């Protein structure tokens, strides 16, 4: 293991880079829906989204590495409460995206041109998204401190 001491810190670095890409791109989109930089039309702005998805995939992969390296720290027993809360928030963020598509908000948002306001439902969805992703970062940071098995 001493030969690959750099592997976990490398995965951590990638996990933070993936986080910045995911929260950065999603945050820019959410803030525009909420009314910032209104001159950006919303359909082409979503062209940035594949980079958020890439960030998520990087974090899914590196996240599995962390669990595989130290399973007891996360799934226990006892189950880490911060880890459970983090996973729950990620699931909620996913449900929020599914709801965004199924409710027809996505189609309404696609029609929001430069200078126009997004519909109220989309604003609620964007605010929930920001709250949940900041929450995911919160529980991730609390892993070492709260409900810990570290």
């Amino acid at each position, binding site marked *: 293991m001493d030969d690959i001491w750099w592997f976990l810190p490398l995965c951590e670095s990638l996990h*933070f880079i993936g986080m910045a890409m995911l929260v*950065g791109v999603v945050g820019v989109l959410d*803030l525009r829906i909420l009314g910032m*930089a209104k001159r950006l039309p919303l359909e*082409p702005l979503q*062209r*940035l989204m594949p*980079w958020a998805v890439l960030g998520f995939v990087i974090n899914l992969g590196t996240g599995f590495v962390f669990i595989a390296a130290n399973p007891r720290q996360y799934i226990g027993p006892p189950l880490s409460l911060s880890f459970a809360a983090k996973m729950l928030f990620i699931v909620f963020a996913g449900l929020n995206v599914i709801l965004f598509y199924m409710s027809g908000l996505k189609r309404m948002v696609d029609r929001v041109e430069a200078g126009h306001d997004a519909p109220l439902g989309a604003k609620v969805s964007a605010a929930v998204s920001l709250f949940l992703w900041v929450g995911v*970062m919160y529980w991730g940071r609390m892993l070492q401190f709260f409900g810990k098995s570290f």
Partner: protein
Amino acid sequence: MGWLQSLEGNSFSIWLKESPSIWGYATILFIHTVGLSFAVGPSVAIDLRLLGVGRRLPMGPFDAFFKVIWIGFWVNAASGTVLFVTDATSKLANPLFFVKMTFVFLAVGVMIVIRRRVFRDPDLDGQPVAAFSKWLAVASIVCWFGAITAGRFMSYVGGG
């Protein structure tokens, strides 16, 4: 190095490091993480647009996100100062700390140049993105990701 020890030795630093309260050290780390996301994330979004993602998007309105970047940066300058003060001697003994700071200052410098040279151009959306601007975008991504990587490795290498 007496003043460094007095930085670490003040009651606030000691409380922050030793208190089991999740409102201390853990919360500062969380704030530092949120600041990172809001400084680096929108920077990368701007860089991606400069590099050709979402070509149908006008560049000009992205200017508004520099506000978010600066808020993220100053939140991290403050939370980073607090984290530094609790651990000043070992941070200053760690070469990676200086690598991280160099990358952060370069990244901020590149964002300032992007704002001044690219965004203040009145014909910003009237012409294709200049090669120089694309290199600035690449430099920005390299410096931010370099800062993150040096920061993560700091807790493994060099005793910091």
